């Protein structure tokens, strides 16, 4: 799925959350959105998911303009916010089932996929427990398992590495995301953790005050940087200095 953002402008009252943002992402990539708090990362994810509607510009999937009525396009992507929208009184399995039904992903192989994912994320013993009896990290994992099981073309994740998941869960997520990218899926996630972005992304998109300050592969960014070992840290330091 080719993703194209063309001159998206989005304001919340007097705050310009996204200022004529444009970028293109080919399928099969893991893209990390980086930026200080309030930079516009979450707004960008919301625009991609159709929750926020751009004031100007547009989002295009495979050259087709995406808006909230394009359910065919909407069902090709899956959004996982920092606090997943789940039914808290229902079991992990029931939540996964409802999501699979919604995305029409309950066909052949669904049960094997679900068992494997639950095992991978250490959720198998908790599969029949209501979500509200789980910890935040476990609840997030339940949303993540549903997302991976539904296996859409575009995964949108808001701060997955600040979700309370344990190291094993994070590792499992990275593994599945890598696997999905190799199968042509696109994964876009936001994060504040520079180390993670350096190691776990094909492309890095640095947003600051609603503008894209850098969007390239880490390799290319490293070539341009003075401190080759701390590319992103140096970039953030420069952004801060430019503000002052």
């Amino acid at each position: 799925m080719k993703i194209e953002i063309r001159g998206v402008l989005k304001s919340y009252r007097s705050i310009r959350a996204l200022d004529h943002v444009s970028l293109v992402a080919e399928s099969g990539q893991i893209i990390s959105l980086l930026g200080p708090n309030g930079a516009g990362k979450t707004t960008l994810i919301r625009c991609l998911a159709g929750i926020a509607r751009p004031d100007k510009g547009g989002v295009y999937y495979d050259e087709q303009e995406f808006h909230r009525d394009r359910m065919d396009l909407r069902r090709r992507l899956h959004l996982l916010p920092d606090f997943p929208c789940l039914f808290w009184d229902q079991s992990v399995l029931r939540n996964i089932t409802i999501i699979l039904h919604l995305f029409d992903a309950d066909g052949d192989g669904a049960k094997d996929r679900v068992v494997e994912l639950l095992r991978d994320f250490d959720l198998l013993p908790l599969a029949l427990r209501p979500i509200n009896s789980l910890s935040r990290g476990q609840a997030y994992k339940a949303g993540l398992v549903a997302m991976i099981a539904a296996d859409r073309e575009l995964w949108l994740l808001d701060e997955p590495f600040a979700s309370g998941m344990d190291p094993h869960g994070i590792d499992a997520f990275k593994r599945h995301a890598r696997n999905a990218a190799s199968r042509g899926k696109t994964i876009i996630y936001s994060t504040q953790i520079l180390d993670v972005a350096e190691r776990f992304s094909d492309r890095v998109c640095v947003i600051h005050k609603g503008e894209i300050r850098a969007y390239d592969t880490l390799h290319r960014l490293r070539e341009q940087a003075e401190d080759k070992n701390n590319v992103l840290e140096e970039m953030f330091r420069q952004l801060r200095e430019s503000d002052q």
Partner: protein
Amino acid sequence: MKLHSSQFEKDLKRLVKQTIRSSPELKREHRRVKRYRKQLNSIWLWRLAISLLLGFCVWNIQLSTGHLTTALAGIGIFLLAALCFRISSLWTKLYSSTDQFVLMQLPLTTGTVFRWQLKKYFLESLFLAVDLVVMLAALAWQNDFTIWKWLCIPLFIAVAWFNVIGLAAFCALRLPRTPFQIISVGLIAMGVVLFFGRSVVGPLALRLLDGNAWEINHLLPTSWALAPFELLNEPHHWWELFAWLPVAFVIGNLKSCLRLLRERMIYQEVMLPMASDQVPGEEFESGPITETPKQLGPTEIEGIIESGLFLKKPGHPLRWILEQKLWNWLNPRERALAEFIHPSGLFLSATWKRIYITLLITILLVGLTGLFSSLMQLSSLGLGAFIVFCMAIASIANHGRTFTTSWVSGVNVPMYASYGIGFSELARFFFKYAVVQIPLLIGVFVILGGVSAWCLKQPVELGLIFGFKTAGLIFASRFILVVFAFSSGTNDTTQFRLSAIVLVMSIVVLGIGFLGLGAAGLFVPMLMPSFLLWGGALIDAWMFFWVYGLFYRHCRFDLMSIPKQ
């Protein structure tokens, strides 16, 4: 009760301002994010203006009709709207206020938090007392009350105010929440219609109010407190004092209602450590912590998943014919939506069973109380009809979990927006969900209409027709309520722009049209014109939905809203 130090807050603010002023960079940033203009605290003035407007309306009602009873009926209807607001407010303050969540994190007992929230509720409710002061003063002035009669007015204000507060506590405790918001919005809309369209519908509304004033004063629980007000004009109507008997019960019950509301205010951590497993295909009770939870081992769970039972649709058994009919009518996509909207299963029959039991109890009470007093009979009918109406509208307008919002990065996002679910498919499901309930809805209101006609000594067939038309309007309100539900999860009208203005104007015009046509359809005495007007109301309701659908698809608003205090 003092939960914070205002001095500390002032000092902190001053320090923050000083720090911002000292740095050009911070000053720039502060200017950039200064979103909210300082708002004048004009709400008090607005509220007082509304009170004066109410006094003016009551004055005019008596001036136009020449009857104190009619003016009191008008106040009773206003108090009904106020009651609905009070119930919603009480619910919000006690169970869903963001303040409460914050307070619970502090080292305070639940009792302290409850009292703090209740105090805010009572303070807010004082506006209602101001309304009563203005309205009753207007009546006293018009009726040339003597000084002794003027001195009685504070008593009526106190009784009426406590009656509303007592009823609000009772309803918040015993009845579902949603209908009260709907009724209050409906009554306000009706008030707006009457005010702006007074030259057109005013005379008809006044005639209706005048013709039914006595019944309204004795049927509406909110009117009971003011029914004896007539004694000040006509002292020989001593039996009006009986209306204070149920009021005394309501006020006497207030303390125990508040105690029970307090008991319900249990702060719960999100985590329930000892929950039982929810095995697909088996009954389970959601939520409660059990001492011996049923928890299966990984092998058993794996076996259950491998069996594929969890993927079965429906996820819960459909025991009754109503649920089965609905399920058979749904297409595969709508079945997936049904699972999403009602994850705990479809429970239509159980709801309607409760409604019919309530109706039966009402009829029995009406029959029994009729043996003693017609006033008690009408009061029972009013209360029963009110409860049945609320339950029926709650069942017809049940949105399940669709519009439940999740707090996501500082904004509220409705559940449906997080997944690939569209406006039309959801609306289609809700329509089918309401349609299967039509026979039961008509049944309830036709019976209720017949009983009401019998009590009011009107031709029974008129009551049956009235009940049928009421059922039709409740069904039509489904179209309107779904729009409000969609709108509640968006910022469609929060920004000042042309599309928002056009949307609001369209909705107001069509909403007024529905209320006007609906009211006319119910009360116009000629059969054929009344049915034509009623049909017009049904079409208007559909138009309301259709117009919003156009805006939903094409307007520039987000499927999220800023959390409100």
